């Protein structure tokens, strides 16, 4: 268990008139090498939760253990935790501050005291991982990059710390379809090739359906659903009720079902949907499977 969260509570602006409770007893476990997605409507506490994984927040009630480091203990080495878990914030391109891509990616390793020769290797490696050719991009000016490239450069800045876990908070927000594909490709590469544990926080059900092996649904500061994408996305009532809506394909299936066609709901992409509808039709024709009407 690389991340272990038990009974976590969080209140923003505690002791002020703006006090709001955002987490009410969250329990969550992440195994090493997993790709977990955390989804939930806005204000469900996702962004707060991920800040606990990186010791930016330290628990007052409950327990957060990251790779053996218990962050609720006073003696915890916060820097170790931050080197174990790399956190990519929403709109990470806003954190870029150096003039060139290479320098900005090198910032993290540099402040962590990595020797100079190794930093160069790490920078190239990280740029490679996000699909920015190191030779071309290392000396390129930040302002000469496109929006999607800036975001990938910022992700490289976190990867260069060589963490064991990467947390992406809404990584595709505000990108065009091409930029989105590139980011998702980067995340998949990081997960599959480098074997990192990935936690993907997102509002985009399509992205999650394609990427995740396990999905955790957060609503009003609590975990309300957990399981494989097939299990979670087919819980039509819950998903609608908490305001996340349905995956397009599940929506199609659930409407078919409402009209009396007894198709399975848990279909995550176009191919799967087409296949299932076809299979259903075949079964109906053969008269062997008993569908309604």
């Amino acid at each position: 268990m690389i991340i272990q969260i038990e009974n976590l509570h969080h209140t923003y602006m505690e002791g002020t008139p703006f006090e709001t409770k955002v987490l009410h007893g969250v329990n969550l476990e992440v195994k090493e090498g997993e790709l977990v997605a955390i989804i939930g409507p806005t204000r469900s506490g996702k962004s707060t939760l991920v800040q606990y994984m990186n010791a930016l927040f330290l628990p007052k009630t409950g327990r957060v253990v990251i790779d053996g480091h218990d962050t609720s203990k006073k003696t915890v080495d916060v820097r170790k935790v931050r080197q174990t878990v790399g956190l990519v914030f929403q709109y990470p391109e806003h954190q870029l501050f150096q003039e060139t891509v290479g320098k900005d990616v090198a910032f993290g390793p540099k402040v962590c005291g990595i020797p100079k020769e190794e930093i160069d290797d790490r920078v190239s490696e990280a740029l490679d991982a996000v699909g920015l050719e190191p030779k071309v991009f290392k000396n390129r000016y930040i302002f000469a990059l496109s929006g999607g490239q800036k975001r990938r450069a910022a992700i490289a800045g976190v990867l260069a710390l060589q963490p064991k876990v990467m947390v992406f908070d809404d990584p595709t927000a505000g990108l065009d379809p091409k930029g989105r594909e590139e980011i998702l490709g980067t995340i998949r590469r990081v997960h599959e090739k480098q074997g990192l544990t990935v936690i993907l926080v997102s509002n985009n059900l399509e992205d999650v359906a394609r990427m995740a092996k396990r999905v955790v649904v957060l609503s009003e500061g609590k975990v309300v659903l957990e399981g494989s994408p097939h299990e979670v996305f087919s819980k039509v009532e819950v998903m609608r009720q908490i305001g996340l809506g349905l995956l397009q394909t599940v929506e199609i299936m659930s409407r078919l079902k409402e009209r009396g066609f007894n198709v399975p709901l848990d279909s995550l992409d176009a191919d799967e949907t087409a296949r299932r509808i076809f299979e259903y039709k075949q079964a109906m024709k053969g008269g062997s499977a008993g569908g309604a009407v």
Partner: protein
Amino acid sequence: MELSKDITLGQYVPRDSVIHKLDPRVKIILWMVLVTALFFIRTYTGYLVFFIFLMGVIHLAQIPILYALRGLRPAIPFIVVLFIIQLLFSGSLYADSTNVLFEWSFIRITAEAVRTYSLTICRVILLFFSVTLLTLATSLVGLTDGMESLMSVGRPIGVPANELAMVMVIALRFVPTLVEELERIMKAQMARGAEVETGNFIQRTKQRIPILIPLLMNTFQRAEELIIAMEARCYRGGKGRTKRKTLRLGILDYQAIAVTILFLVVFFSLTKYVIPASW
């Protein structure tokens, strides 16, 4: 890490209280009167009474007193440093004092100096407190309308009342926004291993760079967006604009004025005749 918790300046706490209902012009003028009065207080007791009065007003505004006090916290280091420096290097001002508490080389701390600077600190704290009080209980729109209306007195001599009010309000409005932004950037850099608040002076200054550069860039971008948004709504300053809600004084406002005047009269007669000047 939560910076916004400590910033009360520029925050508005919406409540349905008597203080919130006052005409903003009255609030601004009374606030200026009180602030001016602060400069005439020369005793600890005076400041204490004044402080209690302000607390009473905060209570009337239904704002938790602890929250209002919290805004002082970030200012404490400055206040302390200010106090110490003044105390250490002002010996020559009280050269003929007989009440020397401590003397070493050029440093000379006298009882008079301690008293003067303690009172100054009290004044600074109360000044800060009264500004917070005004912004905590006055909505931004109220504040602009009030300021504009007060400043338009100077319009015949060319005071751009609306523009000035707008500038002030934008500045105040963006304090919480920038704090939020600052917090976000700090966290993003901390997540990359950046240290904040460690090492010596030079190291600390260097640590500010990864935080300040993005903050500045984002601020410029925000300003530009704001300009576009204002232009898209055809903002041309105050010329020819009418108000949906015209300000008018009500009974409550006259009562507030009366209470404040009464308080000041009683207060200053007390400090003059009853409370000894040395307290």
